[in-house]
């Protein structure tokens, strides 16, 4: 089952991060975070950007770990598939959460 986990972990981290950031946006908008500023930027934008960075770091960490001897799959096929899906997770984290720095948050 460890090999199945290796294949699923990259996109799973993306799915968790995607859901968490969407939830954070909903909760923060409901609590009026967009109206409070910290260091010239809205508190909401900062929180979402931070969450996005954390998500990218997590996706990158998963990818890096799957390259290490400890977590790398011994089977070449599983290694290929798990690295490909980890890249998918990382790319998806970057692309689908990019709107946190580009779009109006609560309108």
């Amino acid at each position: 089952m460890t090999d199945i986990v290796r294949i699923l972990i990259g996109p799973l981290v993306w799915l968790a991060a995607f859901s968490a950031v969407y939830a954070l946006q909903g909760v923060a908008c409901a609590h009026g975070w967009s109206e409070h500023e910290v260091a010239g930027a809205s508190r909401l934008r900062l929180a979402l950007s931070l969450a996005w960075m954390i998500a990218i770091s997590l996706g990158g960490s998963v990818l890096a770990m799957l390259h290490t001897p400890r977590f790398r799959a011994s089977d070449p096929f599983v290694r290929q598939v798990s690295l490909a899906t980890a890249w998918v997770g990382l790319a998806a984290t970057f692309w689908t959460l990019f709107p946190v720095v580009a779009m109006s948050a609560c309108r």
Partner: protein
Amino acid sequence: MNALGRHRRLQAIWASAPGWKGWFSTVNHTDLGRMFLVTSFFFFLIGGVLAMLIRAQLATPHSAFAGPELYSQLFTMHGTIMMFLFAIPAIEGMAIYLLPKLLGTRDLAYPRLTAYGFWCYVFGGAMLLVSMLLGIAPDGGWFMYPPLTGAAYSPGINTDFWLLGITFVEISAISAAVEITVSVLRYRAPGMSLDRMPILAWYLLVTALMILTGFPPLILGSVLLELERAFGLPFFQADLGGDSLLWQHLFWLFGHPEVYIIFLPAAGVISTVLPVMARTTLLGHGWVVAAAVALAFLSFGLWVHHMFATGIPHMGLAFFSAASTLVAVPTAVQVFAWIGTLWKGRPQLLLPMLHILGFFATFVIGGLTGVMVAIVPFDWQAHDTAFITAHLHYVLFGGFVFPILAGLYYWLPHGTGRLRFFRIGEFAFALVFIGFHGTFLAMHWVGLLGQRRRIWTYEADAGWTTINLVSSISSFLLAIGLAMVLLDVILHLRAARRSPRNPWRAGTLEWATMTPPPAYTFASLPQVTSREPLSGDPGLAVRLAQGQGYLGEPRGDQRETLTVETASGAPDYRVVYPGNTRLPIVMAAVTGLFFLAILLKIYWLAPFALAGVAALGLRWAWSLGQHRDIGPVAVGQGAMLPHAAEVDRSPGWWGSLFLLVADAVLFGSLVFGYAFLFTIAPAWPPPAWLPASMVDLLGGTAGALVAMLGIRLATTANRRRGAPLPGLVLAGTGTLVTLASLVHLLLRLPPATTHAYHATLLVLGSYAVIHALIPLLMLGFLGAQHRRGYLSPNRRAGLPIAGLWIDYMATTVVLTLLLVQLPGLVA
């Protein structure tokens, strides 16, 4: 024993009862796969007739063919039947029929569960058909949006038929998903490591995991809406703290993955059939597997693109628009892999290949219009128009029906042992292709001209008349084409020439069985050394028939197979299946009684039906018990393997694990609903928070922890040849304390009809109560097994299963108590 003697012996052990009575007691995957497929195509026929009625109505303006009430029932039932009663069951049928043969094993993991799922599907589908015959069919559209479907605007029984019938049918989908997942992971031929697994098995594994995680939100949504309709719990009523958008979230959390649940197995068929037609191997096997996994995950991040017009903030729209465009990438990876496979091979334009080409042309257009509607400004223009109807038909017909027809013609010789004699199929394909594109290209056009979907008529001067007429005429061509496919198949069954064993010269193991396949599938199980075992070893089928593989010698009247370790495919343990039984159909009927009781508002009957299901479930499990230790036995090829009852991770443990995955998603969806209402719904906060009770919180948590400790003590004592009973009693006591805390919590709740907050707490608490009752039943069962001598240090498989359910109970109970108490504690 020679091959013929082995065949007769195995056939006597594995065969279903003869005649039509055998249908009710069969647990054989070949029989049940065929039954699933025939039933699903029967529903396809009905759904098709409904489509023709819809097109007849829209062919001309101001048509007197059907009034608005009937028309609403027609389009609702068309969508419902095609999605829930045709597409998903057809996938299940295909998987049930093919998987054991592809994987080189004798049956699926849980043959009785296969039968139970089938009968739930038949009874649930029958409920919906009866509603149609009585003229009280669901009429709120296949996605049943409240408030239209709430009690105020849909007071009849129509919507209840949908909510209860579909939930009943979904038991079948969840059963099949657990079955497929465990079968692919554990029930394979020895030596079939993950890299040697056939591509279709990968696709079906991904699909099954998607069903386990995609269907629970809809089950929850249906339960909540039925609770609102039947008992007035206001989950979707804005004035009482509910929100109709919650339904849309829950529905599309299911609904969008559903599209890929339908597409991915069809893509698996393409990935299997296309290389054979091109006389080569699949290009980029690993990349295709990665693309399927990626597609499955990304499909769970798209659900809000069905809700772009609901006023969600721009950032939320952009998240889902970005995800919707991204999903085109893994889809394209697969399409390019298929094109590359054609390029490197020597394609033959046989009938399955024609349907694959039909798939390419149609699905790529559907994918491109999908990218169009993923872009928010375009979606706002096209939303709820016939353009969307056309797009979804290009995706679903192109991405599912063409591949399924390719698969039908590819595997028909396997199922019948015959080759086609008449050449009607080619002409039928031409009609289907031309008819489909005539129908739905026109529908794109009329949608862009502004025709709304689901309208029952239109004005003559709207400029849509000619286009609608072209669309309707084409739809009848499509219907004639599909009728000719049916005729072709019937003629094939009646008059065709004998087929050789492997007519396509394919490399996968299903072609190593006799055709039509015998009840036992393989006389002995192969040792797999490559991804396409038949390619380099055409004599394999004969050697297996001669018993030169695993389990080549029948043992008594036992239906035996092997499981393997997930990654390496090394043999793990021996499984002895139960024989033919009517238990699944009886249990499905009693399950149906529960749904019927709710539908007809005979509420007093519902608990009795549930008790009946529980009693039958206990009898089901009891029959698997072993009276004496068996120990490892020889399974051929010099291997000795233990019995499944004498291991820690038995089939029951694996099945429970994946069932709990689905259960956890349901719980997560419920928590999401609570958080959504808490954050977004207009009439919050409620008049008062429920006062926190440390008695409930600490009592429930302590009870759960004691239960966890108790089952561990019982397991350890049993393994060390001690008495497991004290541990079981301790676990039971802990569970009872938890149950008492939960009941106390429920008794403290204000009336659930007064606010969505109270209703949500009631559902959360009831969920926890149910999950405390299940381990309690299991502990009682284990106690009885111990008394009757069914437990021993070797025969220990039941204890880890109960442990799994108790751990799940503890987790959900503690989370529930925290979620329920938290607002009161903070306040």
